[in-house]
């Protein structure tokens, strides 16, 4: 079965499987009910396979030896870590690329969060003119195409000698990280009750104290969710890092793996590429597994208004 088959099947089974609960509540015959619940589970299994099969194939391929990389067995046989050893053997500087990614994504996240917390506090708590205009502008900037930032900044950074530096990636990254952070934090802070801060202020706190001692601790989960989302977006960033960096010692992991090349064009080191891909993705997948509830909350609050 191919991926597209799976997809078609998912599309087919998704629709009829939905009314199960309605049918069950209507007290339909038991046979029909079990058939329907069976079809729900079939649909869910298809969604599950659809989401994970390509990723599974990446993992399996990364665990094969170079000699049997074109095998199509569902499990690697024989099992081998050869590709992972090769990825880190030094010639590709992949370890350095991972560190670069961590530095760039981490710094971007910290900057975006600090600015975002202040902006979100102002938008969610203070009353001032042009509030919705400002929020609108900030959100509109998140729709800005990356290339429209990259082309002019590439020129500017060439002139001021920023090419091949971390700040050449971090500063443009803020163009998508700040709107994301402001949006998420604003949505989150709006949901927090104002009563507690008000009580604190009646008890003699200044606005700043109420913000720091009452709101910020309450908003910590929202800040954390925003941090995860911003980090994932920055970690996955590609076009800025690709354009601003041509020194392998500074490039980020996503760019580094796209540039893994073999001896000839027709001999791409797929095993190593898959291993590197798994290494880049696994931290994100672990984050997703651990914080999935928060991430879903953040995504649906931010984009699913």
């Amino acid at each position, binding site marked *: 079965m191919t991926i597209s088959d799976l997809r078609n099947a998912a599309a087919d089974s998704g629709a009829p499987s939905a009314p199960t609960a309605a049918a069950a509540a209507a007290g339909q015959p038991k046979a029909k009910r079990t058939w329907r619940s069976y079809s729900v589970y079939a649909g869910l299994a298809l969604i599950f396979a659809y989401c994970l099969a390509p990723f599974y194939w990446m993992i399996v391929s990364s665990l094969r030896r170079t000699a049997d990389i074109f095998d199509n067995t569902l499990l690697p046989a024989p099992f081998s870590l050869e590709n992972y050893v090769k990825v880190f053997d030094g010639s590709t500087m992949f370890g350095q690329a991972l560190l670069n990614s961590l530095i760039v994504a981490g710094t971007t996240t910290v900057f975006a969060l600090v600015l975002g917390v202040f902006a979100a506090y102002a938008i969610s708590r203070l009353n001032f003119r042009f509030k919705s205009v*400002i929020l609108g502008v900030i959100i509109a900037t998140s729709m800005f195409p990356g290339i*429209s930032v990259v082309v002019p900044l590439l020129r500017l950074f060439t002139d001021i000698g920023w090419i091949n530096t971390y700040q050449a990636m971090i500063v443009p990254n803020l163009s998508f990280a700040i709107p994301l952070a402001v949006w998420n934090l604003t949505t989150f802070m709006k949901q927090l009750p104002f009563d507690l801060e008000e009580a604190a202020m009646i008890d003699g706190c200044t606005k700043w104290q109420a913000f720091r001692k009452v709101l910020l601790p309450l908003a910590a989960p929202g800040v954390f969710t925003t941090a995860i989302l911003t980090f994932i977006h920055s970690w996955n960033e590609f*076009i800025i890092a690709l354009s601003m960096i041509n020194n392998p010692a500074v490039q980020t992991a996503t760019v580094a793996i796209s540039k893994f090349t073999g001896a000839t064009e027709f001999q791409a080191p797929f095993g190593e590429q898959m291993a590197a891909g798994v290494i880049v993705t696994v931290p994100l997948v672990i984050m997703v597994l651990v914080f999935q509830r928060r991430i879903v909350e953040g995504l649906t609050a931010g984009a699913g208004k």
Partner: protein
Amino acid sequence: MTSTVPSPGAQTGTLQRTTPPRPATPRQSTTRRKRGNRSPGEGRMAAMLLSPTILVLALVIMYPLLSAVHQSLFRAESGLDADGFVSEVESFVGLANYADLFVGESGRRFLNAFANTTFFTVTTVFLETVLGLCMALAMNRAFRGRSFLRASILVPWAVPTAVSGLLWRWIFQSDGIANNLLGSEVLWTAEGNASKLAVIIAEVWKTAPFIGLLVLAGMQIIPAEVYEAAKIDGAGWWRQLGSITLPLVKPTLLVAVLFRMLDALRMFDLPFVLVGPGKESVETLSMLAWDESNQLRYGSASAFAVVLFLYVAVVAIVFVKVLGADVTGAKELKLMSKKSRTKATRTRDIADREIAEQKKAEATR
């Protein structure tokens, strides 16, 4: 109750939506001041808190935009100097870079990239939306294994696009698993329609679950009573889908589709890694602009970037103005102040019932 019990995470999402909006500002909950009065200190504080964000955004968004417009009016005539840098000789050519979008070889390339960008956007967003809706419908009725499923649905979203490009390049190798399973010998990652299809499949794989997730969140706030009422009135499953589910998830869906469209319009990483730069059949506007700036033709690169920006802006405006996608939550803000004015405190249950009644009325109309 016909609907499923939402998992805890989903439930918080539900609560967020159905909780009656709280007063956003102190003056709405106190009688000390009247609505609309602003203390000067508050405005100053807001300006102080917002200025760093505005400043940085001006630097990374406004400056590049203006600079791109400016650069698009110039053309480097003599190319490279002896050191391999751009020569300083740049002449003002007015709108010539834009005029060239439609004539000659560069014009042909631009129109091709424009067509590709539009084609990818329309096809991928359409497929994503249909698939995402189906996924959400299936998941909305699931009792067990939901959090497990939700985690798996987040995996394609979390995989970096560049990595997913590599992954699908491997799957679509001439002797790879796709051809093996299909029993075909298609060159997916070379040129032609097969590579277009490869890009579409890879893109839809990554983003359909995301739409499913958003739509699911929208579905879970529909009160079960609405469906019960519809059932009593004799509405079948299709009728319920068409008259309740779809109209009520429409706001969520519109915003999700808008965001996906804007994302698809700037598509770069996936075709770049999956098929490669400079391939006619998958070259998008972003890739074309990137390639031009790589050739140090900043003038035309900027013109492409400006055109793409305008394209994105037009799509966004059409969505917000014509289709009424409520992106900023502006409607909610208005609703908030209106409600808090009429009733300062209101329990969630009453609000819930009211919403349910409204929706019921809508559904049975």
